């Protein structure tokens, strides 16, 4: 894809995102450039909380954002991994923008915070095999 080629050529994240912000009208796609944040908490605050809310309780309007707080669906780590990689309805596809490590970190973060306490850790290898 043309936009992607330009982005690769430019290399750095900040410059690349500026280019994509001027993307043509036909190409307002999903994030494909690298996410600068590292570590579960920083990634949650940098990306997830905009919809799932800082307290991870989600929100309801004409549609809703599911709560991650006290969410039994997080028991199976494969579920959030898959939703982050592939997206689901209003949830964007983040697979291309996140590294395996970043996905593992944020999944580990949400599974051990906000009233969740699942102790089995996800590794970047788990994420890789889910891609």
């Amino acid at each position: 894809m043309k936009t992607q080629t330009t982005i690769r050529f430019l290399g750095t994240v900040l410059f690349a995102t500026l280019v994509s912000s001027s993307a043509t009208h036909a190409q307002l796609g999903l994030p494909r450039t690298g996410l600068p944040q590292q570590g579960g908490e920083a990634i949650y605050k940098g990306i997830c909380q905009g919809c799932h809310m800082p307290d991870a309780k989600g929100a309801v309007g004409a549609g809703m954002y599911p709560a991650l707080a006290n969410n039994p669906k997080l028991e199976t780590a494969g579920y959030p991994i898959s939703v982050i990689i592939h997206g689901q309805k209003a949830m964007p596809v983040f697979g291309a923008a996140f590294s395996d490590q970043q996905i593992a970190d944020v999944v580990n973060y949400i599974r051990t915070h906000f009233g969740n306490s699942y102790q089995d850790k996800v590794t970047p290898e788990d994420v890789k095999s889910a891609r």
Partner: protein
Amino acid sequence: MIDETPVSRRSILKLIGASAGSAAMYQAMTEMGYAATSDFNGPIKLSGARKGASVLVLGAGIAGMVAAYELRKAGYKVQILEYNDRPGGRNWSLYGGDKYTELGGVTQDVQFAKGLYFNPGPWRIPYHHQGILHYCQMLNVPMENFVMVNNSAYIHSSRAFGGQPKRYREVVSDYDGYISELLAKATSQDKLDAALDKDEKDGLLQMLRRWGALDQNYEYKKSDDASNMRGYDRPPGGGLDSLPVNSDLLPRKGLFSSTMWISLYLNKSWDFQGTLFQPVGGMGMIGKLFGKLLQGVIKYDCKVTNIHQDEKGVTVTYVDAKKGGAPQTAHANWCVCTIPATVLSQIPMNVGTPLKNAINSLSYIPAAKVGLQFKRRFWEQDDAIYGGNTYTDQPIFNISYPSHGFFDKGPAVLLGAYSFANINSYTFEGQSAKEMVAAALEQGSRIHPQYKTEFQNGVAVSWHRVPWTLGCSGGWTDENRARHYDNMCAVDNRIVLAGEHCSRLPAWQEGAVLSSLDAIKRLHQRALAA
């Protein structure tokens, strides 16, 4: 002057115009690419709806109101159900006294002075968006010029020139100058002989000298010619002691290793070419006037919870969006659904798998805007900037000065941040409204130091927290569009979708209009054939 080619397009058109009249000339112009605008083909003319036939429109945004207006004119009985308590949808302006409650429950009280506003959503209309412009004219929405390019506005890079903002005219002239110099030198030193014949070389060199303000040796230097492009340290004056003082060029290394070109390239695209317009009094004026025209047709505060179709018609279940309470139903023969895909994917609806999959495949892009009110127009009074856009590599990305109210002495509102459609936009819009206003002030003050003393109040809208859209606009990728776009637009029995997400102009109101016109045309055909 460069000679025209012997038989120019213009002379052909003249000939056609003289011999075949203006209609033929217009057609020829269109074919030759002169008069091309969006694919709006003039007002739609639907007529002859079956007696008693009815349509339920979901959503009173631009797409929904266009559909309702045109279908009512065609003879259908029409009702709109709208989630908000106002018409317009994303066509929306915030005025002093307004309250806005976002997802998560935070309410902002807009404190702008009387008459001042901020457009959280669409804010400019290029001249070729003839569909939305048609409805603006129909509704008698007064329009004014939107200033897109201002050579006096700034381009700022935190990594170039010590973070000092540079005027657009300096950046564009110096890019032109240095690029022309390099190209002219390569050409004159015969390094491009494999690519260019003698005539081309001569023509190119002639052009580059003027284009880049080069001297006789094809060098771009501090000079009268360069200052005539990039501006002066002291401009030419009158009377005694009036000699101009030429300005220093930006060093080439700093310029070429920066990303300042991004701000220049943006303006070159078709979407942002002038003339651009804005409605007088805020973009939301379109929605307001359309809503007035459709008074009695729109039922507000309706949160749709179920959409069901059978062989006779469509039944939509909804609850009061504010008070909740017992579900109510509305029924019609046909349905135009403009509910954003992000919301629609969460509403039970019995449509076929192709449409269902299309709806489920589409998430919406991130975007956030901040409006800031200042005590005075310091950008005009101190910096001689009248409208237009400043760009920065900071997260706020864009400052836009009001294209209206020039020279007013009172307070004014400018766009203090516009983060759009990139991974960092999630981070920007993930901040609280207060944090976004603070970020806009902090980052903007690196370009305009006056920010800190002149600031009065601000409002911030994060599009992923807008309760009725869950994002800015359809985030189509090429791959996703190839798989799902046609299915998204196809009529599914008695239901058709419309909105910017069903167009190839995502995030533009023109996309909403064109999508709506196409959808109702096909629905009308289906209704007549049924």
